[in-house]
């Protein structure tokens, strides 16, 4: 083993400590957590997980989150694809300004825009729907998706487009049959980033939902009651929020390294 590999090992250890601690905490009783620090659960319990999987408010929180995150990912990538194609292939009036303007939408302080967002979505009558959260999250996901996809598309030579036209392909057929498979890795990476940022964002998700589409992150505030914090439950819910992300990243792990390597990025 070379000395150099110590750095990633220490770094990963540093990353894993709080996660290990969260996971062990989820198997402890709240009393044990409050009594003092223990490295392993002394009285191993699955109560917290049983509560989550049997109480509809809890598991619907997860389902709601997964619904709007998927909706957002599909929507963001779908609108970003043609735009990224235009940015990578053509010059047009105001293209650079437009590109930077898109980027600026990541900079608006969400904390203050939450209230206007609430008013806007109430007035178009989609408050408390999955669509509302999915649409709101496109604000910061679409610019990123355009940015990533543009990088990948730029690395595909323009001759590919021209050859396809010579062969008599129409634009939609060319785009779906030839172009998309070529930037598959880019679509994977863009979708992953959309998934990630939509999954972890919770200020807007919480503001735009009440009952029907309440995300898991908002349900978790229920662990604080008059009787104090139910820390075991909080830890179990937190542990479960890592799992969908971990599954997604397991599937796109190869795209991330190989994918980014292809393009400009």
């Amino acid at each position: 083993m070379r000395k150099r590999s110590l750095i990633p090992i220490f770094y990963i250890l540093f990353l894993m400590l709080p996660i290990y601690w969260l996971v062990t905490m989820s198997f402890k009783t709240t009393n044990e957590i409050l009594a003092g620090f223990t490295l392993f659960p002394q009285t191993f319990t699955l109560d917290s997980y049983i509560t989550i999987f049997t109480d509809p408010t809890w598991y619907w929180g997860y389902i709601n989150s997964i619904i709007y995150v998927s909706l957002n990912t599909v929507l963001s990538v779908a609108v970003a694809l043609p735009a990224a194609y235009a940015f990578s292939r053509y010059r047009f009036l105001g293209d650079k300004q437009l590109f930077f303007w898109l980027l600026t939408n990541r900079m608006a302080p969400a904390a203050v825009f939450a209230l206007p967002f609430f008013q806007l979505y109430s007035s178009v009558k989609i408050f408390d729907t999955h669509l509302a959260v999915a649409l709101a999250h496109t604000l910061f996901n679409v610019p990123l998706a355009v940015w990533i996809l543009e990088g990948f598309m730029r690395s595909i030579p323009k001759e590919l487009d021209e050859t396809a036209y010579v062969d008599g392909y129409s634009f939609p057929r060319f785009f779906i049959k030839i172009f998309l498979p070529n930037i598959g890795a880019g679509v994977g990476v863009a979708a992953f980033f959309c998934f990630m940022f939509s999954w972890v964002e919770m200020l807007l998700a919480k503001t735009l939902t009440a009952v029907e589409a309440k995300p898991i992150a908002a349900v978790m505030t229920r662990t604080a009651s008059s009787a104090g914090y139910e820390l075991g439950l909080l830890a179990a819910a937190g542990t479960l929020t890592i799992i969908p992300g971990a599954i997604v990243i397991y599937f796109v792990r190869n795209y991330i390294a190989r994918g980014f390597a292809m393009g400009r990025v």
Partner: protein
Amino acid sequence: MKTENQKAWFFVLPVLFLVAFNALVPMMTVVNYSVQETFGNNTFFWQGLDWFEQILRSDRFQAALGRQFMFTAIILAIEIPLGIIVALSMPRKGIWVPVCLVLMALPMLIPWNVVGAMWNIFALPKIGMLGYFMNDVLGVHYDMTQDPLAAWITVIVMDVWHWTSLVVLLCYAGLVSIPDAYYQAAKIDGASPWAVFRYIQLPKMKTVLTIAILLRFMDSFNIYTEPFVLTGGGPGNSTTLLSIDLVKIALGQFDLGPAAAMSLIYFAITLLVSWVFYTLMTKDDPK
């Protein structure tokens, strides 16, 4: 070579509609609030630019802005070099690559309020792992609910834990795109590891570093949920970053006018700094 084609606008239209709906309407609302005064009942009075003047002069805003710049500067100074170092020392091939990537990406996939909540308990003296280790094993007095310095350290360590992986992933992606031939040529020339880094790896990472620095700047400048859940801005006002202060004014005191003015100033500062970064880092890109 790109061709000039104004019809490309049609491709951009869906994005334009979607983002404009989300960005312009709320933005107009905020602009409206920022120049008006209300006494309830949805009656508004023209106020002019008073709120802007009031905010810019207030000590509270200047202090929060100062803390915000300090926070962003510190985390950029830690996360960017650390991210580069970890990316450089990661394995390039083999079964450890996916393991490293998946493990490193885990912190980013945890919802932000969960991150805040878990670090809050993690750092508590007596019952949290970090708090227990610092107080009972090392014997250092460490309590982030009492001591502003401890609170600052906790907020920064939490952010480094949460986001350094983003820099690592981006830099790693840049590094694996360097063909082996470059390294072989450098070896023949007898280049030192520093020279390899300076003249081969760093230029190849430039575009990904641009993305990493811009994203980290924007997101850390707008950070809200994690420090709010972790410390609530305390003890006192010591970790009240700009967003936290803004929400205190907007929703705590319900002073919509000053809050709107403040968020526009805030937005303008973010925009200006990002634009400077963006132009500096892309100025010698071949377009």
